[in-house]
């Protein structure tokens, strides 16, 4: 056989091809165009509200007319998406810096590990005061604080995922980029970002789900004995709760459910289905993500038209970005220069950290003395006990159910989307109902707090139990059937070891979530009645409300310590065990 020859078929000029397409504009295109227009209008209309004048002396009155709910919901949604965009930008910058600079990596990655264990809600106070000072006399400060809270719940996970994909880029793709002398810009957008897209999208979706919780928690907040509220579903629900009006709380819950499901359907499903194209595999997969919305969009001409009109912009950017240089690594490094650089960097970084520590120590010493750490350390034990009970009970209840669901493809199809929605539904939304229930039955909040924490955290265990059961190969189950391995023996020999790796993932997420949730679960209010449990969460919540910074710092630091310690001493070890012994 010889090489095929012959020129490319003659092409029609671009304008006539576009014209041909335009004349065939279908109703699909018109629907999509209208939808985009409406969306733009809504964003502008809703966005206007964020710059409304506002002064800190103003008393906060939230209008609880159910007719206002659509507007409130839109404001909440806008916040969520702005936070998501901020997370993506942060992810690109932070992960890129950590992956490319050997020196920065040493600081950035451990810092990220700590940051993701810090109870975000504890920092809301600091954020609110800071941002209000930044935008005096405008609601924008409060908006930023709320967005910041959501951001901190999303960014770390996404950054880790992207950093991981940057550092584990397949060797041949790295060599391809350098051998063909790609520009740095090309390497980032054509190789590194696409290779990390799947991880980023899935992590983004999970984190977005977790973000609802912080949205609700951050829209209405009292700091320094002052109440702040932003228009949104969370503050609406907060006001309804304060009034003790269960009917309005019901409306808010319904709105929330519609939002969670709607965003999933209109945004995340299409995005995950679209991300399929970035799978780095050599054959067509059997199971692919599908989305009705994406199929609909693909049937319209808009994606192609927009793509064609954006291409010149992309090219111009690519040309401009040539100034960043070519993707190349110098073959020779001067060892003395390198060591001097390391040393200088180490001294500067170490110096800054030491200075900060000394300053913090002096501040605490002046205000309260270092004894301030004693109380939270003890209270932490109480909350720790709650987390242990929660994880243990959730395991006993949800693992068998999850396994049952995971083994049946039919049940999985029905249950998985439901569990996904339940996991992203902000549990703090349901707290008022729970408090009402506690008041009726006389259940102590010290015990009931576990229930409140579980409302949000337990789903991770169920979710991962399902995934783990699905991952057990069918032939293993058939072999066990064949050998007559049933009952207890089957659980001990096949099911538990098989589910273990993904259970550990679920467990670590659930326990982290429970610690965070304790800040809002150990102090709850409904219609003028406040229930307070003994625990580290309540300690932090009270310090926040009083604006007591030394106690707040101590509480947050101790909680971070507990979370990091638990991760290192327990979960990491289980991870390693799962990896070496029970990997399927």
């Amino acid at each position: 056989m010889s090489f095929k020859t012959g020129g490319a078929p003659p092409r029609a000029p671009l304008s006539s091809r576009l014209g041909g397409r335009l004349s065939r504009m279908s109703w699909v295109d018109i629907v999509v165009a209208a939808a985009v227009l409406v969306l733009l209008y809504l964003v502008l209309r809703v966005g206007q509200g964020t710059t409304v004048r506002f002064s800190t002396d103003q008393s906060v009155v939230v209008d609880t007319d159910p007719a206002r709910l659509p507007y409130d919901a839109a404001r909440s949604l806008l916040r969520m998406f702005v936070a998501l965009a901020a997370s993506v930008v942060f992810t690109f910058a932070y992960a890129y810096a950590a992956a490319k600079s050997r020196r920065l990596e040493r600081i950035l990655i451990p810092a990220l590990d700590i940051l993701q264990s810090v109870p975000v809600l504890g920092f809301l106070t600091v954020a609110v005061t800071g941002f209000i000072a930044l935008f005096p006399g405008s609601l924008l400060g409060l908006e930023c604080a709320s967005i910041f809270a959501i951001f901190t719940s999303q960014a770390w996970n996404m950054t880790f995922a992207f950093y991981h994909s940057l550092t584990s880029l397949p060797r041949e793709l790295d060599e391809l980029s350098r051998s063909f002398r790609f520009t740095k810009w090309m390497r980032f957008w054509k190789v590194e970002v696409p290779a990390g897209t799947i991880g980023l999208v899935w992590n983004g979706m999970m984190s977005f789900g977790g973000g609802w919780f912080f949205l609700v928690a951050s829209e209405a907040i009292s700091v320094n004995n002052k109440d702040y509220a932003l228009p949104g579903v969370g503050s609406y629900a907060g006001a309804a709760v304060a009034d003790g009006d269960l009917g309005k709380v019901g409306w808010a819950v319904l709105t929330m459910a519609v939002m969670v499901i709607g965003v999933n359907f209109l945004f995340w499903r299409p995005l995950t289905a679209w991300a399929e194209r970035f799978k780095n595999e050599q054959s067509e997969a059997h199971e692919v993500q599908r989305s009705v919305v994406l199929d609909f969009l693909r049937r319209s001409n808009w994606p192609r038209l927009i793509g064609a009109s954006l291409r010149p912009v992309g090219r111009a950017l690519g040309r401009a970005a040539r100034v960043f240089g070519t993707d190349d690594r110098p073959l020779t490094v001067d060892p003395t220069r390198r060591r001097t650089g390391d040393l200088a960097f180490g001294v500067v970084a170490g110096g800054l950290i030491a200075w900060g520590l000394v300053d913090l120590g002096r501040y605490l010493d002046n205000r309260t003395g270092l004894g301030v750490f004693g109380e939270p350390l003890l209270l932490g034990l109480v909350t720790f006990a709650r987390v242990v009970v929660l994880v243990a009970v959730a395991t006993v209840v949800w693992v068998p159910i999850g396994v049952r669901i995971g083994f049946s493809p039919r049940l999985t199809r029905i249950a998985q989307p439901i569990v996904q929605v339940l996991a992203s539904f902000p549990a703090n939304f349901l707290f008022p109902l729970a408090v009402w229930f506690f008041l009726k039955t006389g259940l102590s909040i010290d015990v009931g707090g576990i229930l409140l924490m579980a409302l949000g955290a337990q789903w991770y265990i169920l979710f991962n139990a399902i995934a783990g059961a699905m991952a057990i190969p069918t032939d293993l189950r058939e072999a066990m059937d064949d050998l007559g391995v049933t009952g207890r023996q089957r659980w001990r020999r096949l099911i538990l070891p098989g589910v273990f790796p993904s259970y550990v993932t679920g467990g670590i997420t659930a326990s982290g979530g429970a610690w965070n949730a304790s800040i809002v679960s150990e102090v709850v209010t409904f219609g003028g009645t406040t229930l307070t449990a003994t625990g580290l969460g309540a300690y932090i919540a009270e310090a926040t409300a009083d604006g007591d910074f030394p106690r707040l710092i101590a509480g947050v630091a101790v909680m971070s310590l507990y979370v990091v310690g638990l991760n290192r001493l327990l979960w990491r070890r289980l991870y390693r065990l799962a990896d070496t012994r029970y990997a399927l």
Partner: protein
Amino acid sequence: MALKALRKLRTPAATTGPAVTPPPAADGDALLEAVGLTKSYAGADGDLPVLSGIDLTVRAGEIVALLGKSGSGKSTLLRCLAGLIPASSGAVAYRGEPLTGANPGTAMVFQTFALLPWLTVRQNVELGLEARGVPADERARAAGQAIDLIGLDGFESAYPKELSGGMRQRVGFARALVVEPDVLMMDEPFSALDVLTAENLRGELMELWESGQFPTRAVVLVTHNIEEAVLMADRIVVLGSRPYGTIRETVEVGLDRPRDREAPAFQELIDRVYRIMTGRPKESRIPGRAEGADLDRRTVAGTPLPAATVDGLSGLAELVAHRGGRCDLADLADELGLDVDDLLPQVDALELLGFASIAGDDLVLSEPGTAFAEADVQTSKTIFAAAAVEIPLVKLITNSLRQQPDGAVRAGFFRDLLAHHFTSEQVERQLETATDWGRYAELYAYDAEPQEYRLDEGAAGEAGTG
């Protein structure tokens, strides 16, 4: 015809490349030059060489094959020449200029294709031109011609995952050729393809080269396939892996093109290269089981275990036994549908154990080797244990365990010892093989969880010490 398309490809791209295009090199001009090249990786005792003392010149107009077993450092050498990894000492120059980064005069074709799955065939082919800042329309034209040339027309808008392996590698070739590098670097480009596809693609490529209009001035081909090297190269550089990558011999291939595999001269050359590859370096010991005095001198460092499992080496021994205890290795490989080099780890293992020796082109089973191949499971374990316990690393592990009161030693202990002589990857492979052999011989057991070796009590191992 291919030629017409080729001319079309050469003319426009040669005028468009905004990157400084050096004047075309005349045949015989040195393009790539490595002098005293050494590459080593960090080990416990300092650096462990993978390549040592390599002097190599690649000239315009020639195809150079780097041939060697796995672990001979041939891919490492290719990457040093391409400026992708730094040499530890020595220098690499392109057209007389020492390299400071990726070589501007080379383009690489990868074993695993390295196509970006999210780009279409056309976009993949355009990547190199885009990196040089070639304007979009010229890029599209040059890519279109390369796509035609390489037989990919009709596939321009396909995504890589829709293509067969052969078509994917064509994209790899088109992508490299379209930038018209001085030297085309090919890293085992056909080894991920099935036999027929590889044969077809090789043939087309050689046809292009022979036409004298190949868009590159020289080719460096990394391969472990002897026949491929003899078929394609003007010069074969055979790399040896013991003790570490050195150039064992350079063979000029004077055969006319197109080359006829059936020609006696072709076959003779294959045999000659094969002997160079399997033969021991001149100063080394005689193949086969060494005598008593020599045995004591064998060290863990000088006697690495080949990457052969007990299943694999006993399978080979049985095959040879079926053929009367002696057979031509090349023929055997052919029958099995394998390359000779696929069998080399097993052959090395049989030699090391004293079960077989190389005589000319034949593998000959020794007496214990025949007994090992024909015995039942228990007996063959005993025979294997007796031979294995003389292998330095196995002996080291067994003796260390016997000196421990509890008969257990952490794997880390051996890992540290081996780290003086091997890279960490090699250490893992050595221990893996030693574990497999020791377990089968029932000399010792290994617990993966505490990562610990234990004596296998009351097993065949005791008999093996006699």
